[in-house]
Structure formats: structure tokens, C-alpha cells
């Protein structure tokens, strides 16, 4: 934990901006460069910055849930939409199903996003807890 007023004020302003940008990248990955992986990385770096400025415990309070839970939920969200096509028409696994502009690929991308956020934050939490005592 760094006891710096400049860093703390900066992070307070930057974290919402980074979260917004990560969602934007995730959403734009639908048709243009971007996607769940890059968006998840930016989101995870935002939370890691918060952990650097305020300590790992404060980041955990901000996140509300264990990063490992986020990872597991992301895997589930990523895997399950692949079965939708099979259930509806017997199509092979991971066949895209569309409902207008959104479909199962978006759900898969959200799953990737959550897995990346969960994995990076688990690493950050473990590494920084070790350095803090």
C-alpha cells in the first residue's frame, strides 16, 4: 500500500473511467477490434491500481466478491451459451444463435471478460498480500 494523496485522488478519478472504457471495448468487440480479453485486462488493471493506492483489503471490499468466484462465474457464462444452439435445433456446440443484433457470442465474450478479471485479480491479490506483511 502506498500512502500517497496524489495517487489516491488520481485513482478515484481513473477507476470509473477505466471501467467505462473496458465496457466500451467489450461492447465494441462485437463488430470491430476489441473484445472480452482486452476489456477484462483494462478492468483488472483499474482494480489493481485501486489495490496499489488503498491496499488489497480495500480493493476486496470494493469488489464485494472473491475474485475466484468471478473467475468461476465467467467460465460458466462462457461455456453455457454454447449449448443453446444444440438445445434449439441440434446444431453443433458453439453454433451462434442470434436474437436481432445480440446473441450467444456476446454472452461468451462477457464470460471471457469475467474470467480475465477474476484471474488477474486473483494473481494481484495473492502477490500483494505477500508483500504487505
Amino acid at each position: 500500500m502506498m500512502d500517497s494523496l496524489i495517487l489516491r485522488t488520481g485513482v478515484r478519478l481513473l477507476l470509473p473511467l477505466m471501467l467505462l472504457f473496458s465496457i466500451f471495448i467489450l461492447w465494441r468487440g462485437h463488430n470491430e477490434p476489441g473484445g472480452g480479453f482486452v476489456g477484462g485486462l483494462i478492468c483488472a488493471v483499474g482494480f489493481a491500481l485501486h489495490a496499489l493506492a488503498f491496499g488489497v483489503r480495500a480493493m476486496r471490499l470494493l469488489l464485494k466478491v472473491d475474485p475466484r468466484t468471478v473467475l468461476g462465474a465467467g467460465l460458466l457464462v462462457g461455456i453455457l451459451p454454447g449449448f443453446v444452439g444444440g438445445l434449439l435445433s441440434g446444431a453443433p456446440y458453439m453454433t451462434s444463435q442470434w436474437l436481432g443484433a445480440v446473441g450467444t457470442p456476446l454472452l461468451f465474450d462477457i464470460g471471457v471478460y469475467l474470467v480475465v478479471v477474476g484471474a488477474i485479480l486473483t494473481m494481484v491479490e495473492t502477490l500483494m498480500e505477500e508483500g504487505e506483511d
Partner: protein
Amino acid sequence: MTVFLETCLAVSVGLVAIALVLTAIRVLRGPTEGDRIVAIDLFGVLAVAMIAIFAIWLGEQVFLDAAIALALVAFFGTIAYARFVEHKAALKAKEPSDG
């Protein structure tokens, strides 16, 4: 693209490239760790500038998003490195000075 803009872009690419090389030399040589940290931060800013120039040159709007992402993320490395240096100094101060 006008001739003037093209000339400006060519000149600025050259200048930023020279600055990148000089910064890389500072990162490699940097007598103290502080020099290296500042140089790495500068390297990130220059990379953002380079991406922005190429976005204008090639007319690709998508490149600007890479520049935004890099600008948001680049200083994270700087802060993490600074924290590492601070941590090392604290550890050194705690150790008995017999070595």
C-alpha cells in the same frame, strides 16, 4: 491529406523515433533506479504519441482506442515499479546494518 500535414507527420515520426531511442538508452544506462522509472513512464507517453501519429497517417480511427488503452494502463507499471523500490528501501532500513 494536404502536403503540409504530410510533412508535419513525417517530421514528427522522426522526432518521436529519436526520442524513443534516447529514452531506451536512458532505461538501459540510467545510473539510479529513479532514472529508469521516469524513462519507462516517458517511453509509454512516446508510444501513445507514436500510435496517435499513425492513426492520423493511416486514417484508422481504431488505432486511437489502442492509444487510450495504453495511456490508461502505461502508468500502472510505473507505479508498481515505484512501489517495489519503496518496499525495497523499507526492507533495507529494517535490516540490521552489519553487512
